[in-house]
């Protein structure tokens, strides 16, 4: 029942690692949208006052590790996760797992992953990869955002696993030793739990900077940026949002499409058409995020830097806020209804 290793490409790294690890256990039904939905991957936060790379600290993702952990938890899959103080011990532990043919998820910093293009290698510590073997001094890597598997020297992998700074991985690794495939009922309940948790994250997080209200908060900020920061700096700030939003493995627009795909897939477990309206809403939200990114590009390319244009961008974000708020409210009602009917 256990499958040999197979490389799977995904839009988001942690989804990909989750799917790879579960498929290796024989979970044929597992897909990226399903992992993303059960793991409640959709999120937004704009942390005020803090600057990140000299720009606004916005994030479109939940805490690293959350998608994997929550997917396993909701599907009743026993998983193990470990962090280390000592890099040598961390390497020994990983080698031990690989010698038992257990493929392992590792949290790494992209700065040290030499197989990625230089332009992408910032000090970003929440990149997840699959390590599936070791040959001499090379680790065999399945980086799920890449088309093909690759490899990396043990020295580089150790550096990447012990990078410092925000979200420092401290050798973080996770794996599943042995698991039975859950029945359909468990999958159904996991889907509902994932949806309800995501509703909570996006609608009911306290304060005005996280969840859908965070999008509105950013919109309000954008209206003021031109005057407060000047055109050049404001353009850089917008550039930072676009990079956070659309770059590999993160994703604003991209994430909405994955979520829409998840709702489509979820229908096959319940009744047809039950999520079609909300799925359509998230497709629209994804389109709007991409429109917003295109507009923001207009500013940092110097094509249009008028205040009216900044207001248009802010208006778009407010439209997204309204759309996603109503979509999650609908979703909440549907999930409640399904739960009451006991699936």
């Amino acid at each position: 029942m256990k499958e040999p290793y197979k490389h799977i490409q995904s839009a988001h790294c942690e989804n990909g690692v989750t799917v790879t690890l579960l498929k290796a256990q024989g979970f044929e039904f597992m897909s990226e949208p399903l992992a993303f939905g059960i793991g409640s991957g959709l999120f937004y936060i704009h942390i005020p006052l803090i600057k990140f790379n000299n720009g606004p600290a916005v994030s479109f993702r939940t805490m690293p590790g959350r998608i994997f952990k929550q997917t396993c938890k909701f599907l009743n899959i026993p998983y193990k996760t470990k962090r280390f103080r000592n890099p040598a011990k961390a390497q020994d532990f990983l080698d031990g797992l690989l010698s038992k043919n257990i493929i392992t998820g590792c949290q790494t910093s992209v700065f040290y992953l030499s197989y990625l293009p230089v332009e992408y290698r910032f000090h970003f510590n929440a990149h997840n990869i699959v390590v599936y073997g070791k040959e001499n001094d090379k680790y065999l890597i399945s980086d799920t955002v890449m088309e093909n598997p690759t490899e990396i020297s043990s020295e580089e992998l150790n550096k990447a696993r012990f990078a410092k700074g925000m979200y420092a991985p401290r050798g973080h690794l996770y794996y599943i030793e042995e698991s039975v495939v859950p029945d359909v009922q468990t999958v159904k309940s996991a889907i509902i739990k994932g949806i309800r948790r995501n509703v909570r994250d996006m609608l009911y997080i306290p304060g005005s900077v996280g969840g859908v209200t965070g999008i509105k908060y950013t919109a309000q900020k954008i209206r003021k940026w031109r005057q407060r920061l000047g055109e050049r700096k404001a353009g850089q700030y917008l550039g930072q949002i676009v990079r956070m939003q659309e770059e590999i493995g993160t994703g604003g627009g991209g994430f909405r499409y994955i979520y829409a795909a998840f709702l489509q897939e979820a229908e096959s477990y319940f009744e047809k058409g039950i999520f079609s309206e909300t799925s359509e809403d998230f497709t629209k939200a994804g389109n709007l995020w991409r429109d917003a990114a295109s507009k923001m590009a207009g500013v940092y390319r110097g094509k249009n830097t008028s205040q009216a244009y900044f207001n248009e961008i802010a208006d778009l974000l407010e439209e997204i806020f309204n759309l996603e708020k109503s979509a999650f409210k609908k979703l909440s009602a549907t999930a409640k209804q399904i739960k009451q009917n006991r699936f």
Partner: protein
Amino acid sequence: MKRKELPQDKSALNGYTRELHYVKDEDGVYRTALSTGWEVKSSALNNAWDEINKEIEAARLSVINEVKSPIYYFMVKNLMNVSLLKSYTGFYKFQIRRHFNPKTFRKLSDKKLQKYATVFNITVDELKNSIKKPTKHSD
């Protein structure tokens, strides 16, 4: 986004990989598709690098003009800031800021220099003497 709307622009990923996206097909079902890149985000990335390269060049000049020590230059070149360098070296922030001073830098022990060199993935000799070469973000 429909399948035919997925951009296929030039990007830094070309020659490395293509990105996976979820797109809607004619029948309204989501499936995956590959993209070589999107102009909007590659220009955001290029802009960010233009900014960084300016900072690196400014740092190089400040070392040549004896305003800052090479530690400062290599910090900027490695895309770090003082707090990240602090986590990597174990020095306090105020110590690192002192080490940015060229006079203090010249008196530093090899042991301390080695700590910095290891983090920057260079030799102590390179840390002390390599600054006059033309700069480019490599490794």
